[in-house]
């Protein structure tokens, strides 16, 4: 049989392939930060503990999203936007039949989208698309009209790129994006749906963390110019409600680790490094039981409400009232307020309540 390749040619090709592989391996070795191989945290600070306020070497955040220094009792403004003038409310609550109109009105009441998004910004919007089970009428995923309205507003403000993403715990993201209606709505509005890529997660130091000091977090969410958090308000077995602070769990890979270590504390720790510039709680429909998955229309209440604030704690605190609860009923909210992530005391903030 005539050989397909001469020996010389074969050795040449193998050598080339080997060099190529070695090259990639080398690049990989140089390029990846020296992170522990395991997707686990180190609970204790390393013996050569660096000052807790120092940012991780792999992560140089823009000012607004900076990890919190040692917690202070005063609320820390989470956005880079110009300090709100006294005329602007701390929190906007808008009620009305049109989800798009109330979303727009809520942002307008806070000073308009221009306060959060500048021309040329790279924006990430994080709704709750937790699984691919049910359409939006079941209130287990964020209302697509609310998400689409935010996409449009960001683009109107001149955003360079608006990406929408979540990491569903069941079903493929593509399917969850379609079933939730968010995929179609976002594309129609001019945004992009992103499948959250495993390679984009990185180990991030959590200097102010009490339970977790380091965790795998989606890098793009930290690197984006603007992060907008759009949870749906719904029932949740262990935390009582899932709202804005809990919604950020969609940005971490190891969620079982949160559960195993104490969910509330881990959520608060995560919120010290992931600081959305704006939180818009979708309460157009809320799920009052059998959350977060839902599946029965009997558990859905139509509230036609949107709550928006740059203060994630305040937005969550207000949302509890829609369920007949108080902020104190949801531990991560009061813990977040204590750690200086925002204000849970609704009597101390200026709230704009608007009916459309």
């Amino acid at each position: 049989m005539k050989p397909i390749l001469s020996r010389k040619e074969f050795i040449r090709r193998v050598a080339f392939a080997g060099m190529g592989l070695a090259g990639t391996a080398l690049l990989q070795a140089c390029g990846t930060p020296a992170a522990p191989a395991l997707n686990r945290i180190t609970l204790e600070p390393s013996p050569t503990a660096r000052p807790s306020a120092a940012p991780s070497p792999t992560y140089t955040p823009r000012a607004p999203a900076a990890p919190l220094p040692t917690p202070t009792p005063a609320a820390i403004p989470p956005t880079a936007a110009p300090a709100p003038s006294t005329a602007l409310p701390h929190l906007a609550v808008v009620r009305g039949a049109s989800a798009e109109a109330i979303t727009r009105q809520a942002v307008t009441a806070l000073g308009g989208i221009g306060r959060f998004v500048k021309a040329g910004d790279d924006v990430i919007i994080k709704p709750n698309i937790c699984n691919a089970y049910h359409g939006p009428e079941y209130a287990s995923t964020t209302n697509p009209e609310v998400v689409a309205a935010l996409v449009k507003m960001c683009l109107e403000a001149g955003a360079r790129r608006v990406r929408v993403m979540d990491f569903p715990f069941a079903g493929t993201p593509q399917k969850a994006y379609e079933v939730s209606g968010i995929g179609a709505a976002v594309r129609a509005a001019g945004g992009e749906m992103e499948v959250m890529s495993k390679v984009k997660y990185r180990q991030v130091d959590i200097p102010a963390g009490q339970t977790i000091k380091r965790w795998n977090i989606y890098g793009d969410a930290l690197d984006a110019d603007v992060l907008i958090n759009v949870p749906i308000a719904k029932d949740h077995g262990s935390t009582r409600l899932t709202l804005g602070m809990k919604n950020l769990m969609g940005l971490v890979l190891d969620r079982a680790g949160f559960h195993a270590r104490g969910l509330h504390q881990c959520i608060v720790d995560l919120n010290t490094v992931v600081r959305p510039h704006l939180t818009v709680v979708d309460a157009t429909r809320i799920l009052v039981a059998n959350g977060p998955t839902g599946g029965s229309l009997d558990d859905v209440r139509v509230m036609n409400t949107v709550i928006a604030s740059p203060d994630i704690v305040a937005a969550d605190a207000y949302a509890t009232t829609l369920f007949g609860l108080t902020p104190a009923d949801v531990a991560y909210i009061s813990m977040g307020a204590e750690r200086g992530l925002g204000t849970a005391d609704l009597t101390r903030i200026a709230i704009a309540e608007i009916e459309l």
Partner: protein
Amino acid sequence: MTSCAAHDASAPRHTSAGQGRAGILARLRPYVQALFLALFVILITLAWVLGDSRSWANLFFRLDPLAGAMSMLAGRRFLPALLLSLLTIGLTLMVGRVWCAWICPLGTLLDWTPARQQPNAALGPESPWRRVKYILLIAMLASAIAGSLTVLLLDPIVLTSQMIGRVFLPLVEQAFSLLERAGFAIPWTRPLVSSADNLLRGTIFPLERHFYGGAVLIGLVFAGILALNALAPRFWCRHLCPLGALLGLLSRAAWIRRRVNTSCIDCGRCARLCPTGTIDAGRGYASDPAECTTCLLCQDACPVSAISFSGGSLRPAPSQNYDPTRRQALVTLGLGLAGVGLFRAGPSSDFLDPHRILPPGGRENDLASKCIRCGLCLKACPTGGLQPAFPRASAQDLWTPVLVPRMGYCDYSCHACGQICPTGAIPDIPLDIKRTVIIGKAYIDTSRCIPWSEGRDCIVCEEMCPVPDKAIKLEEARVKTVAGQTVTVKLPHVERERCIGCGICEYQCPVAGQAAVRVYSPVLERG
């Protein structure tokens, strides 16, 4: 025995027209083969992307008359979807075993594998070992009559599908992951990696790597079949392939057959080239239509255009020395039937594996007697939870799909396995009904469950439970921790009558190693 076909004086002569056309056809064949192989791989690869039209992915199995006939026989029912294989049968009756040389993906891979060109004399045109494939076919028939399809693992389309789905695509995914990680380390290729990931993850490659039991075994068996080329080209097709045997039997009555006319100059080129080695120099370069795959290599190579493939045969081709005798056939049939009895002599799979969970509807449908082991459901399963039943299964159930929840759950929004199954072994149940089909029952191991054993809240199982009114309920209770304090925790309980056994609780349970909530087979009696 003399061959009638070879020197049939009445055969029409093709002296002028044949050569040129045959030349083009013979040179076209590798491209046709590559095209079919590519189609085969692409259809399997697209099992998720095709969505509700994913039944296209099983096209090759609907064209495979062996899988179709055996599945109908063992399942004792008529399957209209499999009538597509009549196309293959019709084609074979027209032009012989063309499937093997032009379409079969395994045949193509064998053609691409280097082979020993001058095999040992014992493997010549009249090698008695050619009989083995007929014996295998008869054994398969016997086992199908007895209701077992395990032997169908030797169907070349099944084998190749298992190879592509369990071995090839997972390897491609590993290579893709390496490239991704390397590309992500370089800043200027990062956007490219991001786009590739967006396009391919969740569509062609899984988001999280899927692992398959028995993958090593499939890889080794497949490599072994290719390695047999070291004995003779297409050793598998000549001696072992049961589908080749079936198509060979049909080819005996084929209308178009290979003929050699009297202008043959005895150069022997055709006999040396023939990939199935059926051209017999000792018999005037005649061939057995049951062995000839109509690859046209001989016609293309003949320096004097003495070889033609032409119609006109009505009488079946004569039988050969290596055909099984009636006695051999009957003994094989008997042994095959007894063999299936032996399959069932061991403990049942439900006994071997108390966690034996079948895909929705499979248990009610007597899946094992209808499943052709094509493995498409394993590829279609988006969570990678469907695994081949191996090794904890009886011989009767070997390589049928089972759900292993710790590896992947049965997604509440998915019924892909039923949509892709070519034989209806997994019924194609509408999604809203599939959501109510009970495939197992979850039980909590309170000695390992975090709230039960450690007095700390956890509740992942309750959170994940997709049943609208939750089959896992939380109950607040005062328990004593290891440290001796009494605390209030939420303890999970399974509401057994609501549980459908999807296994997402087991999959997501944060307890290390084996989950603290596990799904058991819904059949609790020893069956």
